[in-house]
């Protein structure tokens, strides 16, 4: 098969329920063997998109291609997709082996082959001793591993995972996250993973698609989303962030001068706000702000602040500081013997921000 054909190709996908657009124009290409995560809050359209790929929902309009072939209108059993659901969806009346054998026996494979492949699949998720147990006799994590074995045993072209770890506690989550990562490396299967947990998305994915209001805000690696957010929503959703109000004061070629709420001026490349006039929002990460008792050199913007709350976390000290304009910034500073400075609560200081670390977004 040609490797340049995307494993999944969504083209202008829409799903409407009456007046409500659950999915509102999603286009996306997933490469073969890629681990791509749909990240978004509930109601953002990520699960509806996944269900349309699985065939549980039909799109109102748009195209879904798996390996270049349209699957719109094809019932789920004929799409050759594996899926792990949020709730444990093991068949309660079958043993673990019966569950894993189910996809093979509905395909009417020979008994000997089914036995062999079930054994291999259970070994893959390290549950080979549990074959005769009932699902109700297993822990949540074990059940989800059985579900994973059942989804992989027929070697589907694509594996869908709909918040598979949502019902598990934190320790189990991390254990199974690791197991899924390993399986992905070992089998090279294409995985589409849905979660609302950004840490999980960052930990597991090759790329992340951030969903909001039925649209994809941005697709990119974790670094892309964190350091080069395309929209204010992505900037606020992925990682910790500070937003400052500002106003476009002057344009000089490719540079824009922005007046901050205090009196400070910030000059940035026009880039994403090429046409913006008036109010803008400036996002800066807490660790990109330097807090100092004195105004620094001219390469940085210095905003005069008052130190509010301070939390000492060993290697890191976090502050909440208040600007003259009444905006609260959180600041995260590394702490070590070589850099032992700690500012006291209530003192006046300067928050210094390098212009190239600022992300400026037009206010919609």
């Amino acid at each position, binding site marked *: 098969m040609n490797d340049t054909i995307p494993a999944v190709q969504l083209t202008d996908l829409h799903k409407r329920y009456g007046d409500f657009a659950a999915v509102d124009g999603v286009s996306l290409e997933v490469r073969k063997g890629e681990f791509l995560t749909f990240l978004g809050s509930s109601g953002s359209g990520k699960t509806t998109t996944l269900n349309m790929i699985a*065939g549980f929902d039909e799109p109102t309009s748009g195209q879904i291609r798996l390996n270049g072939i349209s699957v719109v209108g094809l019932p789920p*059993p004929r799409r050759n997709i594996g899926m792990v659901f949020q709730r444990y969806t093991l*068949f*309660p009346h079958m043993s673990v082996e019966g569950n894993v054998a*189910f996809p093979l026996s509905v395909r009417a494979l020979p008994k000997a082959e089914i036995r062999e492949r079930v054994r291999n699949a259970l070994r893959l998720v390290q549950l080979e001793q549990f074959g005769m147990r009932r699902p109700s006799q297993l822990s949540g994590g074990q059940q989800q591993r059985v579900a994973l074995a*059942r989804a992989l045993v027929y070697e589907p072209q694509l594996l869908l995972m709909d918040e598979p770890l949502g019902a598990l506690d934190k320790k189990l989550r991390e254990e199974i996250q690791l197991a899924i990562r390993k399986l992905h490396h070992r089998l090279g299967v294409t995985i589409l993973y849905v979660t609302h947990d950004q840490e999980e998305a960052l930990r597991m994915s090759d790329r992340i698609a951030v969903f909001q209001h039925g649209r994809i805000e941005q697709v990119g690696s974790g670094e892309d989303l964190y350091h080069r957010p395309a929209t204010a929503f992505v900037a606020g959703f992925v990682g910790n962030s500070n937003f400052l109000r500002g106003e476009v004061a002057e344009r000089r070629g490719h540079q824009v001068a922005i007046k901050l709420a205090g009196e400070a001026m910030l000059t940035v490349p026009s880039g994403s706000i090429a046409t913006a006039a008036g109010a803008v929002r400036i996002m800066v990460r807490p660790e990109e702000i330097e807090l100092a008792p004195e105004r620094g050199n001219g390469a940085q913007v210095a905003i005069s602040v008052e130190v509010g709350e301070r939390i000492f976390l060993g290697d890191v000290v976090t502050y909440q500081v208040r600007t003259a304009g009444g905006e609260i910034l959180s600041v995260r500073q590394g702490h070590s013997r070589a850099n032992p400075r700690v500012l006291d609560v209530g003192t006046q200081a300067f928050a210094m921000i390098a212009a190239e670390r600022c992300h400026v977004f037009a206010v919609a």
Partner: protein
Amino acid sequence: MILTRGQGGLFRYVLYGHAALAMAFLLLPIVFIALLSLGSSRWLAFPPPEWTLKWYQELAGDPRWAESLWLSLRLALCVTILSVLLGGAAAFALTRGRFRGRRLLKAFFVSPMIVPVVIVAIALYSFSLKLGLNGTFIGFVAGHLIIAVPFSVICVGNSLRAFDIALEQAAAICGASRLQTLRRVTIPVIAPGLMAAAIFSFLASWDEVVISIFMASPQLQTLPVRMWTSLRMDLSPVIAAVSTLLVLASMLLMLVLGLLLIRRAPK
């Protein structure tokens, strides 16, 4: 709480006594009938002067009783199968369907439980007279189905509401067709509900007397009808023997149902 262990003192014994009286009230008539069936008195004197099995022998010796038993059994089995099929299918539509008037339709399906049986019987009688179904096996089946189907709709409906639809999605994505999913996932998972529907349907037909009296012909008399007519002609301890056997059969079925519920409970 009133019943917390180690509290309540004397009041607990009042409650025990109350429970014992309630059970006696419910069970004594049955025990009484069973004892009478084993007594030698033709006039059902109590306590029985002597113990005997002769009423059971007389029962076994009269082919009309055996005919009625056989008819009731065939009837109950036919009704059970049809009730589970029809009621189960209706329950699927009422639980899964998204159509207007669903609640109304559900109330309609359960209405035979609320409408007095005698009204159903009279209506059925006049209707089946026109169709020539009176005194036929099919007429009996149709009449008993009216009483039995609500049980199936309720039992299967409850199972389906508790059924996680994601199981069917999981089966579908695993490659199972609609039919394979129904046969290998849905039906086995709701099997206890189907069993309950079958047992209640069987008992509904087995015990049914009002509709049967209207439907009966001299040739076709179900066991309860035969009991009713022979009771009107003469009060014989054979009736007590038949009653005892019926109670035993019912108890056996309820026991099976109870065991099924217990088996399901630990999940």
